[in-house]
């Protein structure tokens, strides 16, 4: 029987430590991992919990991230609660197996500490790996600080394992900005946390020898489409379960989560839409601008997948101008978040002016002043009634101003 871990009411934890504690409290049956910066401490801490008797489950060091996720798939199909952690190149190596996990409807939990993708080699945070996973069929929750990395990891088990969902879940946090930044975290005690997550309920487990099953069979054009359609529906329909779990978590802790988070949006004229720590830094900027009379607000998808098409639309339809920030090199397109937010807003009567900012690649600092400048450009667009800048701009890159595409509206 695993030992209980004594926790204080308030701890000073970084995001990695917070995530590893949540994994420990969920009493995972199998963690198979191959550590990589900046998520290494999640695996390292978890290993020490195992060594010190705080975990009853198995800890498997794999030979690669591909192997780690493959072991997770096997363990989950066998009927266990399963989790792991990765970042960047490790995530990229896992991608092939990510689709297997979701296709087999295995509720594996993957804590992703977001990091840039090479080349150039870079260990710092951006959202390249998160974006790489966006079509993989996983639920993707996004934490903006260490507390949320802890909370959402606990919620992830409950969401993914729900019999109405049965899908794998990623919990994202920003490399270094969250993973290596210690902040006040208010953890639950072990019993309360475990009670919230609940005992693992197996579903069609391979190790039930009274009912042998095959996982991930081959299907061609005769069966493939139906399976993928069912999986997509499960992902879209998981919205209701996510809401339920967040509601239950709020009752337990007082901490509120929504699939789309809104800050200062009641009367907002201009808004930033972003992911990760940038959301909070942008709130600081919005508060400052409100002192100058600019009605600024911030909207953030807490849930990147399933994409909250409806809630994003509701949150933004009364604004005049929206700046969507993508922390991933878009490589020949508009940023992914921009595209999805724009698509949602296209279905509103009001159709706010939407611009795209590529920023913070490879961990480049996103300062309060950067957010202020972006808000001010959005305000200028709102006042002019058309987009006054290129639709896509690079913010914070050295060199001549870099922007693409002009508007055909208004002007």
């Amino acid at each position, binding site marked *: 029987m695993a030992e209980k871990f004594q926790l204080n009411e308030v701890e*000073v934890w970084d995001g990695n430590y917070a995530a590893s504690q949540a994994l420990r409290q969920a009493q995972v049956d199998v963690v198979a991992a191959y550590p990589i910066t900046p998520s290494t401490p999640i695996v390292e801490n978890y290993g020490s919990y195992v060594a010190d008797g705080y975990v009853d489950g198995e800890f498997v060091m794999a030979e690669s991230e591909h192997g780690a996720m493959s072991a997770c798939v096997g363990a989950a199909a066998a009927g266990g609660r399963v989790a792991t952690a990765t970042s960047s190149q490790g995530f990229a190596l896992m991608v092939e197996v990510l689709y297997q996990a979701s296709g087999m409807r295995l509720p594996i939990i993957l804590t992703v500490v977001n990091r840039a993708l090479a080349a150039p080699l870079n260990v710092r945070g951006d959202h390249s790996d998160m974006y790489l996973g966006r079509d993989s069929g996983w639920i993707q929750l996004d934490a903006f600080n260490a507390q949320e990395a802890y909370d959402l990891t606990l919620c992830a088990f409950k969401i993914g394992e729900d019999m109405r969902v049965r899908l794998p879940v990623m919990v994202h946090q920003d490399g270094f*900005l969250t993973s290596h930044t*210690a*902040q*006040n975290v208010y953890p639950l005690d072990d019993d309360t946390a475990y009670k919230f997550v609940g005992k693992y309920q197996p579903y069609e487990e391979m190790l039930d020898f009274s009912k042998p099953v095959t996982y991930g069979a081959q299907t061609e054009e005769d069966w493939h489409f139906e399976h993928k359609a069912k999986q997509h529906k499960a992902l879209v329909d998981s919205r209701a379960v996510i809401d339920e779990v967040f509601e239950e978590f709020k009752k337990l802790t007082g901490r509120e989560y929504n699939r789309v988070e809104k800050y200062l949006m009641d009367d907002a004229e201009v808004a930033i839409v972003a992911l990760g720590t940038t959301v909070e830094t942008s709130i600081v900027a919005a508060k400052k601008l409100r002192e100058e009379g600019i009605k600024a607000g911030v909207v953030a998808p807490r849930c990147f997948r399933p994409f909250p098409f409806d809630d994003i639309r509701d949150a933004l339809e009364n604004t005049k101008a929206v700046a969507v920030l993508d922390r991933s090199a878009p490589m020949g397109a508009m940023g992914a978040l921009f595209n999805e937010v724009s698509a949602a807003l296209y279905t509103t009567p009001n159709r706010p002016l939407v611009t795209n900012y590529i920023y913070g690649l490879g961990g480049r600092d996103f*300062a*309060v002043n950067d957010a202020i400048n972006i808000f001010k450009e959005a305000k200028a667009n709102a006042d002019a009634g058309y987009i006054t800048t290129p639709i896509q701009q690079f913010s914070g890159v050295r060199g001549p101003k870099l922007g693409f595409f002009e508007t055909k509206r208004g002007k």
Partner: protein
Amino acid sequence: MVEIRWHSRAGQGAVTGAKGLGDVVSTTGKQVQAFALYGSAKRGAAMRAYNRIDDEPIINHEKFMRPDYVLVIDPALAYTDNITENDKESTKYIITTHLSKDELIAGIPELQDKKDRVFVVDAIQISLDTIGRSIPNTPILGAFVKVSGMFELDYFLNAMQRVLSKFPQKIIDANMEAIKRAYNEVK
């Protein structure tokens, strides 16, 4: 919001120090943030650690900072690193050195007009005397407690004892002694 920037070398304990300070601060009911920026993350390379302390939850994640306190825990970095970068009219400097304040300032032109805001303590020597190793992070905290007046010394020592509780008593005692000495010796 109180903001602190640590100048250190990788391996000298600035990250541990910043997190330790964070731990203590959290026991007072305040909110804290502790993070670090490495250049090349190799032992001996110059690096910086940061603290933010506030009554409200800290949601600013920018790395840019205009510090209220600059803690320099490596004597040479006072000369080679840009310790006055983005400072304010009120920024206070606590620098570890075996030199007197006047001798130190004589060698650092940027500090000439900030004399009344510069404090010196030989944190390296104190850590050698008490802990037996060159770990200047705990003594610099003792100096910080004195200069900032943020805590009573006894309160800080008690809280620090809890933070260090996983270590053997001998090490805890040595660290307590280091903090006390730096508190009394900082000038």
